């Protein structure tokens, strides 16, 4: 037996041969940190979607300056997508774990109606309590999804398709044909729908705060990173000893809570709620995430991308009439946009993996 070098504190090992040591010494990267950051930013999906968004805004503004430059234009630009941002952020978190949540539209409808009911049945209830109630009810509904998916070990698509029907059925039974009108809601709450702080709408601020919190969590928390690991390879995640069930339940809980919050936002923004509020919006939320670069089979993408995707979807809808495209064609354009996003994603990732393989071959 030879004696190995004395154990050092650092987990480094003296490399057997000095000549190879020099040659093989690893540099973290040959690029300066700032340039590397700039490069990876330039290549990121988020940035390319943002560029498309800015292009759309620019085109619409040139055609009609009030699209951006009037005070309503600026406000609507931020306000209109707020609700979809919330949904897309939750959806992105779920998709990153290689699941999907189709029930968000129904959850939104339920909490939107709940919001109105609370104001009608408990006059004078503080707005904060209503927001908390929406968040909580959404979280509970999301938890049900999460438990069914994680404990039942059944596909999320089927479960949330089922709960889409169930939750919608609950709203319909509860609301019947009654509806919430603006006059049922207190002025202070309705004002939230349009209030601005330094020209930034409050609802948009809420969306951005949520987005930042979730984005920060997913990027910097251990458990946040585990969302990605689980989506990237669920079997490997089990071998790593990650608590897959807890994270999946957590993702659904988050998505439900944000859909619940979006329901309250819906009530504040539109001022009237009928029992079919939010019908069909789940596919928009999935589409926003996909456009924003969240891979449908999990593991990659960011909530920032999903949020930009949501803004792009909504803004395109608003800009097309301005560009002289009849609004009837908008949906077709959205479809084409989704498809090109997926195809682009494939092209980029193919190029990326080719680049990585080449890098390996050369090293």
């Amino acid at each position: 037996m030879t004696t190995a070098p004395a154990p050092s504190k650092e987990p480094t090992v003296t490399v057997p041969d000095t000549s190879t040591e020099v040659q093989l010494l690893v540099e973290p990267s040959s690029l300066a940190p700032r340039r590397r950051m700039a490069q990876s930013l330039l290549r990121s999906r988020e940035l390319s979607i943002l560029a498309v968004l800015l292009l759309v805004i620019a085109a619409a503004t040139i055609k009609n300056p009030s699209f951006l430059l009037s005070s309503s234009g600026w406000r609507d630009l931020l306000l209109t997508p707020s609700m979809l941002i919330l949904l897309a952020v939750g959806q992105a978190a779920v998709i990153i774990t290689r699941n999907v949540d189709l029930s968000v539209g129904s959850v939104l409808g339920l909490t939107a109606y709940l919001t109105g009911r609370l104001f009608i049945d408990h006059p004078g209830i503080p707005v904060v309590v209503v927001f908390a109630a929406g968040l909580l009810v959404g979280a509970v509904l999301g938890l049900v999804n999460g438990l069914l998916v994680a404990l039942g070990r059944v596909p999320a698509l089927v479960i949330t398709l089922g709960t889409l029907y169930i939750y919608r059925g609950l709203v319909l039974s509860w609301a019947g044909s009654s509806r919430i009108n603006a006059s049922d809601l207190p002025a202070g709450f309705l004002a939230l729908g349009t209030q601005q702080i330094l020209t930034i709408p409050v609802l948009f601020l809420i969306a951005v705060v949520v987005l930042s919190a979730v984005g920060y969590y997913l990027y910097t928390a251990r458990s946040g990173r585990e969302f990605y690991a689980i989506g990237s390879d669920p079997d490997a995640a089990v071998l790593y000893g990650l608590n897959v069930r807890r994270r999946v339940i957590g993702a659904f809980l988050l998505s439900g809570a944000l859909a619940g919050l979006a329901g309250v936002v819906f009530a504040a923004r539109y001022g009237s709620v009928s029992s079919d509020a939010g019908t069909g919006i789940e596919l928009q939320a999935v589409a926003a995430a996909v456009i924003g670069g969240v891979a449908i089979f999990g593991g990659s993408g960011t909530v920032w991308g999903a949020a930009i995707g949501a803004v792009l979807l909504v803004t395109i809808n608003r800009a097309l009439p301005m560009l002289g495209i009849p609004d009837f064609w908008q949906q077709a354009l959205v479809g084409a946009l989704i498809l090109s996003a997926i195809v682009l994603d494939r092209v980029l990732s193919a190029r990326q993996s080719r680049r990585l393989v080449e890098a390996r071959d050369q090293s």
Partner: protein
Amino acid sequence: MTRTYAAYAHPLWRRLLLTREAAVVALVIAVSLWAYSNVPYFGDQLTLTYLLLDVTPILLIALPMTLVIITGEIDLSVASVVGLSSVLLGVLHERGFSIPVAALIALVVGALCGALNGYLVARVGLPSLAVTIGTLALYRGLAIGILGTKAVTDFPSDWTQRASETIGGTGIPAFMWVFLLLAVVFTLALHFSPFGRGVYDIGLGSEAAHFSGVKVERTKFVLFVLSGAVSALAGVFYTLRFGSARGDNAAGLELQVIAAVLLGGVSIFGGRGKLAGVVAGVLLIGIISSALRLQGITVNVINIIIGLLLVLSVISTTVLAWVSDVAARRNRGARPTKTPAGVGTL
């Protein structure tokens, strides 16, 4: 010295009766009997007619959808193809095309829609869930774009009547012949042909199927094309039955179709399921809806019931496996042999 084997581990009755399909069929019979004796007017011929007319589009689309899901893919764009073919039928009719010619063109366009899905999924290798969410928006957008939210309603009445006329005095819509024909074709293709075995193999292990010479790409492509064409046929029927071509016809139908297919015992992971179960699943939803409507119960409760059936039907497998696992463990008296496994995914 060669061994000989029993073909089956279980007798025929067990293989027929202890299956998901049998359970759904039993449920259909039970619900029908209950409705027949408890729901006023459920026994009427008219009920049968309307029930079948209502489920016909779902029945039609469920046929190719079953095959698509068995290969492990999904097609969310079907309802949009229904809308698009409806609009085409309307617009072409307005331009003076005869109904058969317009319908044929609609079918071709439907097949092309399916071909785009198939190309992106099978050839390019993109996930079908994402692709068909995109084409769901695209095809619906084209439908609405072509016609706006206007409607074409002046279809010749002999054609609109043909869509809902019944066979003699049976109360069964004549259009069921078309479904029956397609159902026979799809059943032979899926359950009694080499092609169908390939479809199952792709769903159970597409790599192994590829290694055995199954043309995985081509099979998937063909199935998406079929899905588009049959959806277009459903669109033609839908248009003539309601005498109205609108861009938003059948919006949301895709989820009903998928719910029915899954309820009928098809696994969303692919590889499992039978057309008989799917047809029973569609009928089950139709019968429940019809019976509840006749009792004056509205869509909300129907929604809840469909949702619950769907959730219960998928977790039942897990629950049953868990129960038999517990039972086996108790018999063996061994320590738990738990193996952590990944949770269900898409």
